C-alpha cells in the first residue's frame, strides 16, 4: 500500500476534484491519498466524487482554514 499527498491549496472547486481525479488515475487499488485544500467546497465535492467512482473516504477534517480529505483508492 502506497501513501501519497496531493497539495490542492489555493485551488477552488472543481480544480481540487480534477487534481484528485488525475492523481487517482496514477495510483493502484488500496493506495491512500491525502488531499490538502483551502476551499471548503471540497468537503462536499471530493466525497461526492469518491462515492460516484467507488473510492473510500477514510477521513475528512477541517482545521483553521485548511481542509484535508484522506481517501483509499478502490
Amino acid at each position, binding site marked *: 500500500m502506497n501513501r501519497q499527498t496531493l497539495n490542492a491549496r489555493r485551488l*477552488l*472547486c*472543481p480544480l481540487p476534484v480534477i487534481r484528485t*481525479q488525475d492523481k487517482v488515475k496514477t495510483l493502484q487499488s488500496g493506495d491512500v491519498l491525502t488531499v490538502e485544500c483551502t476551499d471548503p*467546497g471540497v468537503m*462536499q*465535492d471530493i466525497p461526492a*466524487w469518491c462515492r460516484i467512482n467507488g473510492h473510500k473516504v477514510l477521513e475528512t477534517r477541517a482545521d483553521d482554514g485548511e481542509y484535508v480529505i484522506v481517501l483509499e483508492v478502490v
Partner: protein
Amino acid sequence: MNQQRKAVALISGGLDSMLATQAILEQGIHVEGINFFTGFCVEGHTHAIRKQDADKPKRNNSLWVAEQLGIKLHIIDVIEEYKQVLLNPKHGYGANMNPCLDCKIFMVNKAKQWMAENGFDFIITGEVVGQRPMSQRKQTMPIVAAESGADDLLVRPLSAQNLPATLPEREGWISREKLFGFSGRSRKPQMALAKEFGFTDYAQPAGGCCFLTDAAYSNKLVDLWQARGNREYELDDVMLLKVGRHIRPKPHFKVIVAREDGEARFMSGYKKDFMSMNCASHRGPLVLIDGAPTEEDLYLAGRITARYGQGRDAETVEVTVRTREGDERNIQVKPLPAEQMPQEWFV
C-alpha cells in the same frame, strides 16, 4: 446477444442535461457523464469565496447530478484549450463575452474525442430547440453537430423528435418514440418530466452556468485586456475578476477591494503576486493593486483603501503598503470621500 451501447452525456449540473441523461438511462444504455471546466464556470467558486453565501450549499451540481443519476462523472480541465474559443470565436459573442455557439461546438468535439478514446458509441446533451438565443436555435443545432464532428452521433433526447433521426435512433440502439419533442423557452415540459422521473431537487437555471454571460464580469475582463494591451489571461486573472470591487482610477493601475472576510481570505493568497494594502489604524479591507502605480498613485490607492475601512470619516488613516516581497511601510492618508470617486472608476 445485443451489444451494450454506451453514451457519454455532457453534464452541466442543470436540469436539462439531468433529464436528457435519465431519458437515455431508461432505455438501458450505459451512460457516463463528462463536465468541462473552462475557468469561467459559475459552479461553486463564489460560494466558496464569499462569506455571505456561507449558508448556500457548496455542492458542485454536476457531481450532485451524477450521483442522483447513479453514473460516473469525468471532470476535464480545458482551461488552456478554451482560450482559443474565447479569444477567437468563429460565430462571435452573445450579449456579453459569451461565445456560446463556439463553446458548445468545442465541448461536443471534446466529448467526441473522449468517446473515441474510451470506446463509447454516442453523445447526449440536454439541448432544447429554441431555448437559448445563440447556441440552441433550430438553425444552430445542426451547426453544433456538424462543426463538432459529432454529426449523427449527437443525440438531444429532449428535442429529438424535432430533429432528424440520429444514428443511434436509426440503428435501434434507442427508441425515438421514447424521446421528446420539447422546444422553446418554457420550462414547464422539463418540470413535468422531472416530476415523472421523480426528481424533486435540481439546480434552478439562473442566467446559465458561465460567468461570461454576466455583463459585469465581461466588463471586467475587457477592462483587464485593455489595460494590459493584449488579450492574454491566466486562471488567476479569471478568478480575481470574480471577487472584490474593481476600481481603476487611472489606465495603468487598478485596485481590488475585498468586500468581506471571505474575499479577503481568498485575496490574501495573492499577496506575493500583487502589491497590497490594508488599514493599520482602523479595521478595513485588504486591497490588491494591479498594474504599475507611481508613488502618487499609491497615495491615491491608500485613500481608496481608507475610504472602505472604518476610518472613512477620520481626518487621517494609517495605511500599510506591502510589496510583493513582503516589505511593509505605513503612509498617512486622508480617506477619499465617495463623491470624489467618479462612477467611471468602477469597472
